[in-house]
């Protein structure tokens, strides 16, 4: 068979190494049809879409896209991705708009009472949270000890009401506590740390804790000024409640021995804090998105 084919087929006429020859078969018709079809396709494409540069401009094509611009005017422009995006966004927003309008108009309490809207808050809020909040507060809002606060417990540095949460998201936060290693000596730091440990029921040296109590409420350390006389913190300035068992900056629960727990507290008092920065979201998210996120975060478990 192959012998026969060799004799019948045309060759290019080249001969290499005595007997190597190259066939010169015509292109298969299915390939040729495909080739010409794609040439025609390209011509059609050039007519429909922006294609060739001409002088200082380009051929824009016949296809147009009609969109509504930010001012609400309807506009028609030659087809391009930027105009097409505005059209796509408008269409998608049209479907969500009734819900977002309701979220914007209703009070938080009413949103929570409306099952349909709560569903919307939970699904749209989850997407927004995953995009914007989860990198720090983690996907379930459980936070990261030592870095970012837990949003699912009922301890809130800046308050857990709807208004507080909305304010936190809109304007951002910045935690600050001065370093006391310049102000207090080693003994005083130790006494204060023992006192703070005793406040939340951790094992502490009673005598030192008593001295720490006095320091806490003295003008030397003036801890009470930010943390309050009862050491329960002040949410207006984001100072922590020191009497509960929830710790963000000093990893007290993670330490094995009472001495190490006191040491962890001592380190924070000595070095202070200039962290706990939450970015402001007002430039990135729309007010109604922030309101929806507020309702979502409030619903994570700890809202007050």
């Amino acid at each position, binding site marked *: 068979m192959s012998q026969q084919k060799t004799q019948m087929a045309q060759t290019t006429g080249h001969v290499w190494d005595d007997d190597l020859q190259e066939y010169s078969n015509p292109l298969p018709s299915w390939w040729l049809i495909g080739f010409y079809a794609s040439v025609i396709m390209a011509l059609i494409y050039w007519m429909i879409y*922006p294609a060739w*540069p001409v*002088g*200082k*401009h*380009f051929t824009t094509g016949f296809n147009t896209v009609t*969109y509504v*611009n*930010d*001012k609400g005017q309807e*506009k028609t*422009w030659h087809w*391009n*991705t*930027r*105009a*097409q*995006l*505005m059209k*796509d*966004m408008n269409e*998608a927003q049209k479907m969500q708009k009734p819900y977002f309008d309701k979220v914007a108009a209703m009070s938080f309490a009413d949103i929570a009472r409306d099952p349909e809207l709560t569903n919307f808050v939970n699904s749209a809020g989850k997407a927004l949270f995953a*995009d*914007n909040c989860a*990198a*720090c507060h*983690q996907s379930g809002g459980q936070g*990261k000890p030592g*870095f*970012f606060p837990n949003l699912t417990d009922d301890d809130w540095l800046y308050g857990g009401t709807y208004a507080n949460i909305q304010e936190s998201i809109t304007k951002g936060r910045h935690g600050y506590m001065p370093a006391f290693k310049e102000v207090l000596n080693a003994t005083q730091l130790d006494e204060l740390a023992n006192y703070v440990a005793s406040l939340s029921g951790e094992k502490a040296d009673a005598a030192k804790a008593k001295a720490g109590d006095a320091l806490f409420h003295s003008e030397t350390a003036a801890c009470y000024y930010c943390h309050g006389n009862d050491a329960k913190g002040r949410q207006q300035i984001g100072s922590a409640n020191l009497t509960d068992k929830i710790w963000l900056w000093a990893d007290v629960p993670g330490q094995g021995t009472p001495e190490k727990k006191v040491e962890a507290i001592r380190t924070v008092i000595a070095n202070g804090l*200039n*962290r706990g*920065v*939450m*970015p402001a979201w007002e*430039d*990135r998210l729309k007010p109604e998105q922030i309101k929806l996120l507020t309702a979502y975060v409030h619903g994570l478990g700890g809202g007050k």
Partner: protein
Amino acid sequence: MFKHEWIEKNVGIMLVAIMLAISIGGMVEITPLFFIKDTVEKVAGVRPYTPLESRGRDIYVREGCYLCHSQMIRPFRDEALRYGHYSLAAESQYDHPFQWGSKRTGPDLARVGKKYSNEWHVQHLNDPKSMVPASVMPRYPWLLTTPLDYSDVTDRLKALRQVGVPYSLTQGEYDRNVKEFGADVAKMLHIPDAQKNLIAQAQAGNYDGDRSNVSEMDALVAYLQVLGTMVDFSKYDNDEFVKFR
């Protein structure tokens, strides 16, 4: 006379013919961009990087961040929802080379600036999995411990100036920058003060949480925090950008 066989049998001619064919393709795609005035949008706020940001950008390139992260938000709905406003040509006009990237293993970074705190970036670069458990990003712990080499920052800015980035050397160029970018930015773009400005920005910004030194982390975080934040999009109607396409 002009038979295919003739080209095929002469390597030199074949080489020239191949180069011609390829360069025609390239020229058709690239040359018009230099002549179409409407390619780069006119927006306020885009400025060259400060010396510290510029060094941060060098580290971004050195570590190969662009291999997994793009800096180009395309005008599609899914990208608009996740990353924000699509990237404008104007926003990378001072990038040499641009960092658009061609592959996303990690997310796009064109608008990552100010989205997370400095502290998050430091911890995340140090150990990505500690912040994002599902992350496949490698760790970059040496950024925090390596002091930033800024001895050659003036030369680097001079090189960028050579390719058209408006860093200033003379008083005339400085005055022009004051007019275009305002006095505060113009000071940062003045090459003779580059080292001084770099140290001042690193200390004022305290990007790595340690004021006592200028680390590579300082530079990289300063760079990341400015990405995509220069244009205030609330000032513009998206209609204006449509006209550029």
